[in-house]
């Protein structure tokens, strides 16, 4: 149950422009957290229950009629500040230019502020609307009081209230004072505005922060500065869990600008949010700190992960995947069905470690003054940062303020707070103001890696090509290992990402998981475990279709059979459903079919292609949304591939800002292509071998294909858009390569050498087929001219 109270009467809101004006806070229990790695997920409900109450959203209107919306989710490119403003503006009947957005700090009164797992809109839409509706109704009531009219005759439109029978008008500004003294409507009595009155939701509204961004004035974490600030750069042990044996600061101290060299004690693995430790060089500017670091002499105790080697580890994982694992979903009898199958298909799939490589490397500013700590940093979860800092530095939460800045990408990296703890620790140790600056090398070599993953699938078809047996084994080090020792098996949240939620109606089924000890610091990335699992699952169903001699799309349609909603509970499967209630957000096969059909229609599935071209598809539900991709690929004789066209369909429920969803889809395609073509972190002697964008390439402009984005009109509640489309790109691409060449890609990133001299298997086009579109070579990916 949501409660709304008039905060202006409680004088709680001095923070907002002097404290006069109408301010409403929405209270609800912010218990839900999508973090799979910190605490067990709790179910999310559409309404919110009373619990530990804290205001989460503020809508404030000052006596000039200016509205201040406090956005409680950090902005990292998902457009959340604009989207929240749109939701509020429609419900408040507000004029766009009268809205100011401010960012909340990490105080508990704002409730949970984590931005992850694509869930911000899902969680916040209703409370936002209720908050805005209350303000509007109070303004309408104030107008009714002024005119001595019936409230029912007073209607808010575009920052004014109109008395409908007489067409009298009062601007909001003239009503604020009266409204402030009125009671807050009971949430049960709130009338939400009809969707036909919406001027923002569903329309393409440009970013509210565009003006500042075009001038370079948006304050990112990297841009925060304070008088007297010092810059710190930290040399960390190349191996996770290692520590300093001894060090000599003399060389560093001799560098111009270097002021101090301090050891940050190592936190033993699993170190969670805490710093890895190392030697910090503190200087009057970043460059001096970097230079000083190069002159440090450090002897490391590399610890027990020093023998970690990705080649050997892959072989171990493969051996595990070939043995029976722990079963997490079963149906029928896989063994006997497989034994009796007319055709058997085996696929072993591999995805390497990848890292976030956020455009803005981790960075944090901390100031310790009068026993209080102020932190300004790009964080996806200011409250987690605050709690972690309090524990780590032995401070009271009340003595810590965390101000989130804009984020130059988050991708889950900035929900993990080692860099913020480093700044806090150094600020406290030096009793001063410190900015911790990570270089790109620091970022690539000391990340929270997305788990390396080996999977094996065994499928059986009967003599008619009907799939009768499916066994999927996954082996990867658990994300929980970053926080808890001895985690060798992943939890249900991770297995619920494209593994146990396998949607095909195959009567004999086993999903098994194998143990994998962790040797690296791990963290969820964009798309989560769906990236690895969807790659294998959507490729393997394509393998089965091919073995059955069937068209892959028709094959999918056939086996999206049975009940339209898969009841995981009835199947006895532990399925957290992205922390949402399965009753409210079912695993809806009908919506999978729908996005598939949509994609087939838009991409002209089945139309002839040119020689050496192939079309591939992949469909998946993740983060409660549904996505389908169809990719056309051309494979040249030298193995080079190019992508003439991608169609991407997303059903993420009701869409607030269609153009932002479209932008996120464009982004998802490129992120997915980067995942498929480039991303690979390898480890030797416990240390990461890559260092920067030269050997850890990401998608560049030149590979941008022709994209066709289709957002499915949907009446379902809004669900995630940032993650769900990313996982389908790699399997759709690999399935297209198979269609073009007959070569099955089972290891990422795609090794283009494998495609050299591949035979052309695509049908020769009939007369009148379209001419070849200009192809974009996907390799090489080097940068364009420097300087």
């Amino acid at each position, binding site marked *: 149950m949501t409660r709304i109270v008039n905060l202006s009467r409680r004088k709680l809101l001095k923070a907002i422009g002097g404290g006069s004006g109408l301010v409403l806070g929405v209270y609800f229990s912010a218990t839900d957290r999508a973090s799979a790695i910190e605490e067990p997920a709790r179910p999310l409900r559409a309404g919110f229950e009373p619990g530990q109450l804290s205001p989460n959203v503020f809508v404030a209107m000052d006596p000039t009629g200016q509205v201040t919306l406090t956005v409680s989710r950090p902005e990292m490119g998902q457009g959340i500040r604009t989207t929240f403003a749109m939701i509020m503006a429609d419900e408040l009947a507000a004029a766009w230019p009268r809205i100011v957005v401010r960012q909340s700090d990490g105080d508990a009164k704002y409730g949970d502020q984590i931005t992850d797992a694509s869930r911000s809109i899902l969680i916040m839409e209703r409370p936002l609307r209720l908050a805005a509706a209350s303000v509007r109704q109070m303004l309408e009531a104030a107008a009714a009081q002024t005119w001595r009219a019936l409230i029912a005759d007073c209607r808010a439109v575009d920052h004014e209230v109109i008395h409908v029978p007489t067409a009298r008008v009062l601007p909001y500004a003239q009503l604020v004072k009266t409204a402030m003294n009125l009671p807050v409507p009971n949430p049960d009595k709130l009338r939400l505005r009809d969707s036909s009155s919406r001027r923002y939701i569903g329309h393409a509204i440009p970013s509210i922060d565009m003006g500042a961004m*075009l001038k*370079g004035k948006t304050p990112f974490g990297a841009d925060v500065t304070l008088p007297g600030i010092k810059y710190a750069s930290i040399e960390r042990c190349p191996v996770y869990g290692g520590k300093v044996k001894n060090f000599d600061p003399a060389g560093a101290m001799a560098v111009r600008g270097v002021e101090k060299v301090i050891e940050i004690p190592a936190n033993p693995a699993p170190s969670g949010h805490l710093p890895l430790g190392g030697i910090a060089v503190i200087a009057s500017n970043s460059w001096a700190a970097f230079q000083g670091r190069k002159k440090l002499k450090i002897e490391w105790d590399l610890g027990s992960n020093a023998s970690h080697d990705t080649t050997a580890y892959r072989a171990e994982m493969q051996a595990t995947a070939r043995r029976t694992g722990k079963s997490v979903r079963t149906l029928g009898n896989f063994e006997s069905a497989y034994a009796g199958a007319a055709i058997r298909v085996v696929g072993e799939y591999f995805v390497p470690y990848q890292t976030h490589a956020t455009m803005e490397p981790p960075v944090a500013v901390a100031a310790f003054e009068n026993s209080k700590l102020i932190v300004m940093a790009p964080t996806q979860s200011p409250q987690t940062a605050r709690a972690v800092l309090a524990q780590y530095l032995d401070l009271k939460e009340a003595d810590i303020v965390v101000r989130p800045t804009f984020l130059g990408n988050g991708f889950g990296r900035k929900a993990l707070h080692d860099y913020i703890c480093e700044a806090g620790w150094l600020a406290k140790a030096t009793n001063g103001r410190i900015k911790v600056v990570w270089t790109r090398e620091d970022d690539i070599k000391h990340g929270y890696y997305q788990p390396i993953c080996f999977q094996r699938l065994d499928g059986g078809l009967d003599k008619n090509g009907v799939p009768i047996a499916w066994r999927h084994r996954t082996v990867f080090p658990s994300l929980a290992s970053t926080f808890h020792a001895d985690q060798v098996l992943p939890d249900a949240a991770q297995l619920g990402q494209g593994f146990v939620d396998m949607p095909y109606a195959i009567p004999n089924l086993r999903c098994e998981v194998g143990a994998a000890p962790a040797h690296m610091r791990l963290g969820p990335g964009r798309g989560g475990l769906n990236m690895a699992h969807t790659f294998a699952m959507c490729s393997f169903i394509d393998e089965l279709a091919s073995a059955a001699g069937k068209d892959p799309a028709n094959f999918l349609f056939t086996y999206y059979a049975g009940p339209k909603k898969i009841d995981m509970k009835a199947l006895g499967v532990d399925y957290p459903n992205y922390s949402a209630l399965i009753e409210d957000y079912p695993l809806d096969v009908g919506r999978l079919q729908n996005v598939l059909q949509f994609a087939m229609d838009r991409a002209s599935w089945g139309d002839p292609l040119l020689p050496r071209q192939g079309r591939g598809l992949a469909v998946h539900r993740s983060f409660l949304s549904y996505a389908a991709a169809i990719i056309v690929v051309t494979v040249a004789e030298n193995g080079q591939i190019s992508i003439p066209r991608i169609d991407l369909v997303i059903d993420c429920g009701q869409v607030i800002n269609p153009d932002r969803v479209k932008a996120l889809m464009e982004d998802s395609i490129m992120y997915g292509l980067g995942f498929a073509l480039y991303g690979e972190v390898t480890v030797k002697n416990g240390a990461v071998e890559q260092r920067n964008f030269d050997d850890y390439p990401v998608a560049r402009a030149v590979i941008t294909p022709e994209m066709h984005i289709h957002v499915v009109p949907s009446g379902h509640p809004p669900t995630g858009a940032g993650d769900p489309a990313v996982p389908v790109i790699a399997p759709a691409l690999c399935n297209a390569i198979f269609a073009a060449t007959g070569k099955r890609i089972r290891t990422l990133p795609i090794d283009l050498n494998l495609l050299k001299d591949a035979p052309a298997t695509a049908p020769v086009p009939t007369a009148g087929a379209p001419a070849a579109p200009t192809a974009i070579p996907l390799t090489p990916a080097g940068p364009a001219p420097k300087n």
Partner: protein
Amino acid sequence: MVKFTLNGATLSVDDDPEMPLLWAIRETAGLTGTKFGCGIGECGACTVHIDGAPTRSCQMPVELAAGKAVVTIEGLSGRAAKAVQAAWRQLDVVQCGYCQSGQIMSAVALLSHTPEPSDRDIDTAMNGNLCRCATYNRIRAAIHTAAKMMEG
């Protein structure tokens, strides 16, 4: 002591002469629109104009800027700049925004020299600017839009 003009004003830098211009701009002058992304010339986030030419400021020792005119995103002006900003707005190009100063500096430099760029011109000029939000598609379209605006 190295002297150059930064957005028209004279700046004297008394740091390590080998310090990249990027850090002089960001930390000595306090203009933070120019971003750090890689430090090795691979990402373009640090792009500024030096005597009108797009330059990766992380790759240029500050001493080499002596006597030159350095322009950053904060000091951008002129026809091409106006058109680029208007086109960026019209197509709502920006996502997180971190790479965008560099993108805009590269785009403005391109349009100043090549008022009607082809897709290939755009790819060549822009391929060194990484965007992890992959706004590439919109950037390409926005550069074409800006080119049209400059005609009119």
